[in-house]
């Protein structure tokens, strides 16, 4: 049985949990004026967490994207596509959902190989 390592572990959530060569990253939110800006910030946050976990976006396995308005799908995707490591896009699902507050318009969580 392999150990569990937690990154930025708080009383309610860890930013990331690593087990058996796989890192599970908590849903990342950001403030920002537009879906484009928020997506950019969220993906930067994911980059930072992956780096702390000793991996990077080229090792992504799966991603879940939540949008408060599915009509902003293309806006999110334009930032996402520019960010993804070419040829290394993860399995992904994107759905509309209410998030933490109306100001939050996109949330993304990922699973990656370490």
């Amino acid at each position: 049985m392999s150990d569990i390592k937690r990154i930025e572990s708080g009383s309610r959530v860890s930013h990331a949990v690593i087990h058996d060569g796989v890192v599970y990253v908590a849903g990342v939110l950001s403030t920002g004026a537009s879906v484009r800006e928020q997506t950019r910030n969220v993906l930067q946050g994911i980059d930072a967490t992956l780096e702390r976990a000793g991996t990077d976006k080229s090792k992504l396995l799966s991603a879940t994207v939540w949008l408060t308005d599915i009509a902003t799908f293309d806006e999110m995707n334009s930032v996402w596509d520019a960010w993804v490591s070419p040829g290394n896009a993860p399995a992904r699902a994107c759905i509309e959902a209410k998030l933490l507050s109306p100001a939050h318009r996109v949330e993304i969580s990922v699973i990656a190989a370490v």
Partner: protein
Amino acid sequence: MAGVERIGAGPHLSHVAIHAGVVHVSGVVSPGGSVREQTRNVLTGIDELLRGARSDKSRILSATVWLTDMRNFQQMDGVWGEWLSAGNAPARSCIEAKLSLLDFSVAIAVTAAQ
């Protein structure tokens, strides 16, 4: 570190990402028709993706089902029940969510062991 194998890698997502014997499948949708038909097509799509990943439905670990209208739960669940490998039901959750601007009524993502 085990490598990551991808099937159907595109700019937004890969249909499948495989790492350390675990298969991550993207959210699968199928346009048009009733919830029953869409579910049947989605599950056929998942069968094909799992086959390509050298796995099958008897090896599914977890599944997330999104329905645009929770009143369609029974329709989806009926097809799901007929499709499942007996005795090998995965951990599953089912949530109502808007899926896209197209007429998708159901999306399903799974994780499976190889």
